[in-house]
C-alpha cells in the first residue's frame, strides 16, 4: 500500500470497530500527510483539524488536542490517522534536511545520516553521569524481546541475550543493531468522542484521563541536558497532574523506544525511578513479564515494529490493554500511561488512559 492508503486502511478498520461512517466524523488529526489529504481521501467534512507533525509523538498530541476540542464543543467525533511506508517507501514523501535550516548548517555537515546517528549522541554522557553500563543498556532490548515473544504480530520474537545484543553489528557506538528500532511499514487510527457517549459504541470504552505535550529543540546537539529530556519532563508530569494519578496507580506503561536508551530517559523523566536508576531498575527485571511495571508489552519499536514514527502503535497497545484484549494482557489493568518522543528528543506527548468511567 502507498503511505496514504496505510492511513486509510487503519481509518477504515477504526470506523468499523466503532460502527461509524465517514459522515459521522467531524474532526481529523494526522501527521506528515495533511488533514486535507486525509479528509479528502476518506470523504470527511471536518469542523476541526489538527496537522501537528512533530515526529513520532504527534499522535499523543493529537489525542490531547482532540480531547480539548471535544470538551469545548468544536467537534464531536475525531479520527486520528497514521500511515507510514517506513521500509518500502511506497508513496512516501522524500526526507531531507534543508541546508539553510539550523540543523542543515550546524549538524548535517558533521556526518549524521538519520536517527541512528543522532538520537544516541547523548547516551555516553548519560552513562558517564550515572555509571550505566553497556550490559544495562543491552538488558532493555533483552526484556522487550521477552514481551515480543508473546505478540503474534511482532517482527522478532526469538529470545536474545545480553551477549547477543553486545555482539550485534555496531551501528553508532555505543548502540548496536539490536539496540536500534526496526524499520517497517504500518499504520494505525484512533476515534475519540465524549465520554458521555460511551454507551452508544460497541467496544469497551477507554477514557483519556490526562495528557501532556512539549517540545525542546530540532537539534540533538542543543539539548539543555544530555541526561534528560526537557520535553519529557514537561509532558509527563503534566499528564499525571491532569489525570490525578500517582506512579503507584500505573498498571501498564508504554515508553516509545526508538532506541534502547529511550526507556531509561522515560522512566526517570516521568518520575518512576530516581535520576540515574533506570538502568538498574530494568536490569532487576521490574519491567519484564512478571515485573511490577510492565513496559512496552508489545515488544516495542525494538522488536515489534517501527515505521519511523511509532507513537500510534504505542497508543494502540495501551488501548488494547485497557480493553483487556492485548496478547500480553496485564491482568486487571486499569491505568495505562502512554509516553512518546518526537524527533531526537525534540518533542514529547503523554496520554494517561483508564478503563473506569472517571
Amino acid at each position, binding site marked *: 500500500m502507498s503511505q496514504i492508503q496505510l492511513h486509510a486502511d487503519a481509518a477504515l478498520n477504526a470506523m468499523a470497530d466503532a460502527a461509524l461512517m465517514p459522515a459521522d466524523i467531524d474532526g481529523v488529526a494526522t501527521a506528515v500527510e495533511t488533514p486535507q489529504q486525509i479528509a479528502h481521501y476518506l470523504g470527511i467534512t471536518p469542523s476541526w483539524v489538527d496537522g501537528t507533525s512533530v515526529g513520532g509523538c504527534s499522535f499523543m498530541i493529537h489525542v490531547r488536542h482532540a480531547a480539548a476540542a471535544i470538551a469545548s464543543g468544536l467537534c464531536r467525533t475525531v479520527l486520528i490517522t497514521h500511515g507510514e511506508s517506513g521500509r518500502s517507501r511506497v508513496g512516501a514523501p522524500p526526507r531531507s534536511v534543508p541546508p*539553510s535550516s539550523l540543523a542543515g548548517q*550546524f549538524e548535517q555537515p558533521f556526518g549524521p545520516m538519520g536517527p541512528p*546517528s543522532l538520537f544516541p549522541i547523548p547516551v*555516553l554522557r548519560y552513562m558517564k553521569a550515572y555509571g550505566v553500563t553497556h550490559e544495562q543498556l543491552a538488558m532493555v532490548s533483552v526484556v522487550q524481546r521477552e514481551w515480543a515473544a508473546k505478540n503474534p504480530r511482532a517482527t522478532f520474537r526469538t529470545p536474545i541475550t545480553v551477549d547477543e545484543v553486545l555482539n550485534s553489528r555496531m*551501528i553508532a*557506538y*555505543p548502540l548496536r543493531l539490536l539496540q536500534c528500532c526496526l524499520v517497517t511499514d504500518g499504520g494505525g487510527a484512533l476515534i475519540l468522542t465524549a465520554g458521555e457517549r460511551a454507551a452508544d459504541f460497541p467496544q469497551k470504552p477507554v477514557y483519556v484521563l490526562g495528557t501532556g505535550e512539549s517540545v525542546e529543540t530540532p537539534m540533538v546537539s542543543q539539548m539543555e541536558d544530555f541526561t534528560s529530556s526537557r520535553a519529557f519532563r514537561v509532558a509527563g508530569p503534566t499528564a499525571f497532574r491532569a489525570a490525578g494519578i500517582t506512579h503507584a496507580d500505573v498498571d501498564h506503561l508504554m515508553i516509545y523506544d526508538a532506541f534502547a536508551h529511550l526507556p531509561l530517559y522515560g522512566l526517570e523523566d516521568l518520575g518512576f525511578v530516581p535520576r540515574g536508576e533506570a538502568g538498574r531498575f530494568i536490569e532487576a527485571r521490574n519491567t519484564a513479564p512478571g515485573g511490577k511495571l510492565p513496559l512496552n508489552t508489545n515488544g516495542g519499536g525494538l522488536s515489534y515494529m517501527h515505521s519511523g514514527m511509532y507513537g500510534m502503535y504505542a497508543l494502540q497497545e495501551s488501548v488494547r490493554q485497557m480493553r483487556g484484549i492485548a496478547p500480553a494482557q496485564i491482568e486487571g489493568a486499569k491505568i495505562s500511561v502512554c509516553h512518546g518522543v518526537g524527533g531526537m528528543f525534540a518533542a514529547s506527548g503523554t496520554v494517561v488512559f483508564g478503563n473506569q468511567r472517571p
Partner: protein
Amino acid sequence: MPDSVRARPQPTPETQHFWDGTRQHELRLQRCDACGRIYFPPRPFCPACASRSVTVFAASGKAVLHSYVIHHRPVSGFTPPYAIAVVELAEGPRMMTNIVDCAQTPEALQLDMPLEVVFEKLDDEITLALFRPMKG
C-alpha cells in the same frame, strides 16, 4: 573534485557572520548586551531575554568533549568509523563537530577531554569548525 562530499551548510542572513568568521579562522559567538547570555546557534536576538541588542565576539576556541557516537555506516564525505561529537565551548554553548588528529575509538575519545578548534575548508565560502585534542 571528490566524488563524495560532506553536506554543505547554506548560510542565511542571521548566520552569515558565523560563516564569515570560520572562513577567517575565527570561531564567533554572540553575547546579549542586556543580560550577558552567550548562546548558539546564531540569532540576531537573545533567546533568554529577547533583547535585539547582541554583540558578535571571537570565542577562545577551547572546548571539552561532551558526548559523541562513533558512526559505523557510510555517509557521503566520511569514512567509517568516525565520531559525530558534541563539544562544550569554554564560553558555555555546545556545538556539533568532528574530532580530528585523534583515533576514532572509545579509548581515544574520552568525555571531558580538552579540545581546541581547527578550521577545515570545504570550499571558497564555507569553512567548518572542527576540534582536536589540546596539545600538552
